């Protein structure tokens, strides 16, 4: 379980990157929290810098889009999905459960 930041520090529409290996991006959108691998599967942009719209994040470099719920790439130039990671909130603190670390399939 990786602590991210207090929920109060991540208002709706915001995102934060955590420096795990590989890095993970956490998004707060539509009242829900999502965590995905931060690096775009197309080249090497950071998705936490992307544009958030509903459950989609658009990559800041060449505009590939990913569905935060599934990690699926919904538009070119990305073709591969990013991994998703479970997120929980405990005592006002956001935690990410690293998919690889916990052995859960993303």
């Amino acid at each position, binding site marked *: 379980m990786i602590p991210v930041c207090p929920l109060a520090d991540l208002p709706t529409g915001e995102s934060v990157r955590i420096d795990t290996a590989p890095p993970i991006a956490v998004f707060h959108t539509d009242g829900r929290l999502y965590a995905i691998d931060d690096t775009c599967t197309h*080249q*090497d*942009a*950071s998705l936490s*810098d*992307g*544009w958030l719209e509903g459950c989609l994040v*658009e990559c*800041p*470099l*060449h*505009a590939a889009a990913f569905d935060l719920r599934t990690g699926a790439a919904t538009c*070119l*130039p990305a*073709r591969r999905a990013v991994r998703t990671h479970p997120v929980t909130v405990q005592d006002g603190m956001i935690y990410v459960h690293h998919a690889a670390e916990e052995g859960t399939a993303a």
Partner: protein
Amino acid sequence: MKSVAVIGASLAGLYAARALRSQGFEGRLVIVGDECHRPYDRPPLSKGFLTGATTDQGQLALADAEEIAELDAEWLLGTRATGLDTGGRTVLLDGGRSLTTDGVVLATGATPRRLPGPMPAGAHTLRTLDDAQALRADLSSPPVRVVVIGGGFIGAEVASSCAALGHDVTVVEAAPLPLVPQLGHAMAEICSALHADHGVTLLTETGVARLHSGGAGNRVTGVELSDGRVLPAEVVVTGIGVRPNTDWLADSPLPLDDGVLCDAGCVTPLPAVVAVGDVARVNGVRAEHWTSATEQAAVAARNLLAGSTVATHHGLPYFWSDQYGVRLQFAGRRLPTDTPRILEGSPDDRSFLACYERDGHTSAILALNRPRPFMRLRRELATQAFAA
């Protein structure tokens, strides 16, 4: 429309083929390309591919096997188009073959300009995967002296990659400052300073007279500047701009002038022929950027299938460049008289967001290592441009 030929099997050609299929074209699709490779991405060639970060050719591929299969196209790779008949529907191919279809997409891109005179071993231009492989092989040796001729984006990226590999790099630029046409003086000055930050020498206001070569393999030994100085070099890379690949269309009825002239919908005066990417001069402008090539392809496909211009390309121009660990992004239409203003960050940190102002409006934006605010502003600018 029962059949379409796409000439040029790279970024714009592949995106046009995809767009035709996704817009419902079910007919015969032939893709002709003079390179022997399936479509691959060029931007990494001057960046990660040279430094070794992108080693696998699969990472460069623009389409995977599954998608190639779905596209259901006939691929004529290693085949060069040599002419287009007066009706614009028959494409002549090398080897005496020809191809007649109902529609043609011209996507033949551009070729690097060369210095006059022969290119000895060790002297390179960089456009294709083969070019990049040859250059990478020459850079795999112990540190050598590299001279990059031309300080534009490709030149700067190559210089950065060579410096990262530990080579001794000099960039020669004819203008008093590189990148001024793209970024204006103030911002060009900031970006050009990246060379010095990383120990790369930038020589400006110097033309190149010729290359020196000799020895057993007749390899390049130096670059003679127009003032007579000779810079010793084991590797030379020329990045002095490109020329659109229109020579093969010289005898066709299409109007050519620094590209294939077409309307805002990428349609040429022959409604069955559209042009996309670096070879196309769309509504008077020829873009040489990745994003415009992909965006134009969708518009061109639509108009080709419709048989006339029913959609136009109004995308906000956008490009990026990666050099010396800095990601540079630019969007908009800048005029030389526009005034740049730093909105956040600082040039000293090589991390900032700037806008170019004209009559109280923002005409363009530039960011160094500021992807998030850049993206927000880019979207705003795109919406305004569309509304205007």
